């Protein structure tokens, strides 16, 4: 991962889609500076699923706001597909923790609306939405309004909306945190299947170690305030994967390692 610090990309393997290069961010809170991110460097290669795991309050959301260009870092830069896009918006697709579907638009219209913001031509957007809703088994609810759908279904729509946006990186911000345990497990399996079929470049932020290990090729473990990258872990399990790996002894060891890393940095309030 040292390649990221200097001049990344090109030097071997698939190219970097997203590079976060030595990014720092602090806020003023109650007149005192609050150091949130401290020289964070991480990256996602083309077709790679990468997770960021950290305790609550470790600045994961701030990291996403910086990548999305909603805020600027105090130091460091964000590069997407090789270009410096620090502080620029419109380069990522995004799946937030809450589905954030527009209640006055149908499922289909929600997807179309997002795609047209990403400059997909309207007719093509409608065609894509119809085709993919059918493909992921949501064809029946294309004309339904979000409030008619269960939480899990809403998140599927939200994921599909992010998947279909023609952007270099998909950012998933704790997408299953608000779901109940059973729905969450089902959604992880579903997401795994969808992702293995599409192989987009994904950055997932989560505080669930199991989720990160199940889904990711690599995991960055963050420490707490100010957040630094404590370790980068390559997940050894081959693909296609399933939740069966949760009973694998290698999984248990990996989980214990990550937990130790998280807890090594003060209390883990979860």
């Amino acid at each position: 991962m040292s390649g990221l610090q200097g001049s990344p990309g090109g030097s071997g393997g698939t190219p970097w889609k997203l590079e976060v290069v030595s990014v720092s961010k602090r806020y003023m809170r109650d007149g005192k500076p609050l150091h949130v991110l401290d020289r964070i460097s991480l990256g996602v290669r083309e077709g790679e699923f990468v997770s960021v795991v950290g305790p609550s309050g470790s600045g994961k959301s701030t990291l996403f706001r910086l990548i999305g260009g909603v805020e600027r870092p105090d130091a460091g830069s964000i590069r997407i597909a090789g270009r410096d896009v620090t502080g620029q918006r419109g380069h990522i697709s995004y799946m937030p923790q809450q589905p954030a579907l527009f209640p006055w638009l149908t499922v289909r219209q929600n997807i179309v609306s997002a795609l047209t913001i990403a400059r997909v031509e309207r007719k093509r957007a409608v065609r894509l939405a119809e085709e993919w809703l059918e493909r992921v088994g949501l064809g029946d609810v294309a004309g339904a309004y979000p409030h008619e759908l269960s939480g899990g279904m809403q998140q599927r729509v939200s994921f599909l909306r992010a998947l279909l946006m023609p952007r270099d990186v998909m950012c998933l911000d704790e997408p299953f945190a608000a779901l109940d345990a059973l729905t969450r497990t089902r959604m992880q399996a579903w997401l795994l299947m969808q992702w293995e079929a599409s192989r987009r470049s994904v950055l997932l932020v989560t505080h669930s170690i199991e989720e990160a290990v199940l889904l990711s090729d690599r995991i960055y473990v963050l420490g707490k305030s100010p957040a630094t990258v404590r370790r980068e872990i390559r997940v050894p399990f081959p693909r296609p994967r399933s939740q069966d790996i949760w009973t694998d002894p290698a999984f248990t060891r990996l989980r214990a390692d990550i937990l130790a890393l998280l807890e090594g940095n003060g209390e883990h309030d979860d």
Partner: protein
Amino acid sequence: MGGNRWRRALPPAAALAVTLLAWQAACVLFRIDPWLLPDPWRLVRYMADEASLLWWHLEYTLGLALRGMLLGSAAGVLCAVLFHALPAVRAALSPLIVMSQNVPLIALGPLLMVWFGFGLLPKMILLVLVCFFPVAWSMLAGLQHAEPKLREYLAMIGASRRQTFWRLELPASLPYFFSGLKLTAAYSFSTAVVAEWLGSGRGIGYFLVLQSRGYKTTGVFAAILCIVACSLLLYGLAAGVERIGLRRLRPGAERVKGGGAA
């Protein structure tokens, strides 16, 4: 559902009936002179006899109130959008506008007449001044209180300011706009009546002034009844427009104010 509605309508209807009966009985028993207090039956007969005259006046006032509502709401929407887009303009002008709403109509009306004569113009100005405010303030609140989750989502995917306005803020402000419209509807008719006091040859307000100067109490009561009925009518109209508007413009989200996810 239907049975429930009738059951809920029963107590106020009964109260109204009892009041009317008591009123009628008091007038007959105590032989109250009609110029002091006309009894309900006399009122009904008067209104039936003078129906065409009353309608001739009402027609004019209704026209005035409706035009004021339309122009006022349009001005309100423009003002809300302008203030939303340009916070500096909002900061500069909103105290002035709030102050202007505290000038009594009875003081403002004669001034407008001095400046703009006795025609339609000063009346329309008065109406628009009154009608634009509820729409403007209510809609401004709606534009600014669009669901933060959706705002954050649009920011993260890089939606422009204009896209955010059309796709989130405007639809989210619609229920607020309609609340403002209902308020405006409730005010507009009585404001039109006040505008007519200030010099007019027609309208229920003008009729009211004539009757009251001549101590024709029955006529005054008839005018009051007409004014109350028309105010309710306009409010009902606005409520109807709200229902249809929300159903057509924001299907699936009629009950969701501001645009929260279900």
